[in-house]
């Protein structure tokens, strides 16, 4: 029986808070190597996140949306995809994007205010979408195109709990249902949309039950259990590729989780939530959970963990170094890529800016 065939109110879990396999759960069929990879990806994401926040604090980067606490959902889901599959992220999916091939220096570059961090050449990743929920119809459209081309890919779309209140959530999922697209709608329910708690977004008990409005399945999963997330996503992706008779391809996955930190570096969560609540959720931290499971399985020990920690720190240090050593984008690049061919008026605006900068000895407009 597919894990998807559950009561949507019943949350899928593989590991409990101590990292023990819960009764009746099946551990997904992953090699030790893959499991260690999963662990390393989460560690890397966590460390990257902490360093990114401090770069922002030091004025070396602009506003940044941290992901700590959400590594399990991002890594677990992204690892369940095949090479040919697509992801359609919001602005917080740094770890999912990393798993899908985007180096963190690109992520930093983007949050340092350089569009080149978002160019994603050769990767099956859509660019960061800032307007909440607006990427959801894109994912349905990708699915329609995949279908049209008779390709075998699946598109996984990430969004938050707050996003479920937007019209685009509704229209995107409804198109998914009507056109029966190979799409997985993956909701990172981290309990908060900036300061508004999940309970004030909608009067429903779960977000998963919203799938009822589109004629396909919805399922809740423990989003801080990377194995459960992996399993649920893998089955949703499988169903999207080869739907059972009389069933629609799409799935709405609600991955229940928590962001440990601020919404973005511009936010102060102490205004709207208790430290006690944060502590409670830290008990579910996906990283020690998977670590305990892997230690128990004999795949990790102190030495291996230390090795991973070191390699993760080195990788992030390199990443930051790489991001900060890239030359600034040129002033001209404001005018590039607005259209395939630069219209004459734009060209003359570009020349005006060049002239201005020359007249002012290049001094003008430099910070």
């Amino acid at each position, binding site marked *: 029986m597919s894990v998807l065939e559950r009561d949507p109110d019943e949350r899928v879990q593989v590991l409990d808070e101590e990292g023990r396999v819960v009764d009746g759960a099946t551990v997904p069929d992953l090699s030790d190597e893959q499991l260690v990879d999963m662990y390393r990806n989460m560690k890397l994401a966590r460390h990257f996140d902490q360093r990114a926040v401090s770069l922002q604090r030091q004025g070396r980067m602009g506003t940044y949306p941290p992901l700590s606490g959400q590594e399990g959902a991002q890594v677990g889901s992204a690892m369940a995809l095949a090479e040919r599959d697509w992801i*359609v992220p919001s602005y917080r999916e740094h770890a999912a994007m990393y798993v899908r091939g985007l180096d963190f220096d690109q992520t930093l570059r983007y949050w340092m205010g350089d*569009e*080149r961090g*978002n*160019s*994603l*050449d050769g990767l099956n990743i*859509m*660019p*960061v*979408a800032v*307007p909440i929920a*607006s990427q*959801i*119809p*894109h*994912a*349905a*459209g*990708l*699915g*329609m*195109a*995949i279908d*049209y*081309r008779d390709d075998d890919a699946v*598109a996984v779309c990430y969004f938050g709990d707050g996003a479920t209140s937007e*019209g*685009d959530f509704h*229209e*995107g999922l*409804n*198109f998914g249902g*009507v056109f029966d697209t190979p799409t997985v709608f993956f909701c990172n329910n981290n309990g908060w949309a900036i300061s508004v708690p999940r309970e004030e977004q909608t009067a429903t008990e779960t977000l998963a039950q919203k799938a009822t409005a589109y004629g396909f399945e919805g399922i809740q999963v423990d989003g801080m259990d990377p194995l459960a997330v992996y399993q649920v996503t893998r089955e949703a992706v499988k169903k999207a590729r080869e739907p059972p008779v009389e069933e629609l391809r799409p799935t709405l996955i609600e991955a229940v989780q928590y962001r440990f930190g601020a919404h973005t570096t511009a936010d102060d969560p102490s205004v709207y939530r208790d430290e006690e609540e944060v502590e409670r959720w830290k008990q579910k931290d996906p990283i020690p959970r998977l670590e305990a499971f892997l230690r128990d399985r004999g795949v990790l020990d102190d030495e291996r963990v230390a090795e991973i920690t070191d390699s993760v720190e080195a990788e992030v240090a390199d990443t930051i170094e790489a991001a900060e050593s890239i030359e600034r984008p040129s002033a001209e690049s404001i005018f*590039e*890529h*607005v*259209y*395939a061919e630069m*219209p*004459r*008026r734009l060209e003359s605006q570009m020349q005006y800016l060049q002239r201005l900068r020359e007249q002012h000895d290049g001094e003008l407009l430099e910070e």
Partner: protein
Amino acid sequence: MSTTQNLTLVQAVRDGLKCELERDDDVVVFGEDVGENGGVFRATQGLHEEFGEERVFDTPLAESGIVGTAVGMAAYGMVPVPEIQFSGFMYPGFDQIVSHAARMRTRSRGRFTVPMTLRAPYGGGIRAPEHHSESKEAFYTHEAGLKVAVPSTPHDTKGLLAAAIRDPDPVVFLEPKLIYRAFREEVPEEPYTVELGDAAVRREGTDVSVFTWGAMTRPTLEAAENLAGEVDAEVVDLRTLSPMDWDAIVDSFRKTGRAVVVHEAPKTGGLGAEIAATIQEEALLYQEAPVKRVTGFDTPFPLYALEDYYMPEAARIEDGIRETVTF
């Protein structure tokens, strides 16, 4: 010589879509009622039958969904040609148009593009209900990354539509529904393009330049003819509103030193303002009279009992031209 057909403007839309559907397998046409029904103006009539459900299909009633899925399809390499049933209903999809279609190329430094052509019937004069008579082209011409075209003849319609569909950037293609069936013209059966960004001089003249587009082209030409003998007016049909053919505008103005802009949209912030501003910027020393704007009023488009008062008509345009040449 290639064979031609005698088509109305809306038939030319259909013919343009048909040719592009034939030419390129990646082209898909979709929207509300564009399938079996053939569109509420019959602009897609028969295409569903001819090209099948995969190429020409109905969508749920959801404009953001229509534009948003088009953006996703485009990212995957397809060439979406969605229809919005009336331009007054583009607003629920406005965010997808300005925040995504217009910006995907910039955002991804050219990795993802949106070669979408977003068609919508537009403008007043057909005794339609509220919201069915808008002309808010200025919303789209103020947004970088979008192109905007408005045809005024069947021949241009087919050619501009083909150019829009083949263009690598998103084009908002506004069809003047007042003249959907107003007259016929010989239109080649073969596919062809009319380049985006090229204005057409519809009537040469030396006394005053009159700039217009879409459904206003006919009353403007009528006004120019009525004044012939008294005033020798040049009439320029802009055809593409973004990017605008500034060379054609400024050249014509340098010749005549006087200009009138005619559009249905409200005056304040309409494209007439941009044209006047550019003319005085580029050719003030040639300017012998204020650039006159003959436009809709700064009010919501009224229900149809009063729409004839709202829309510029030949007599009003004549007055505007006369005032400009006698300034």
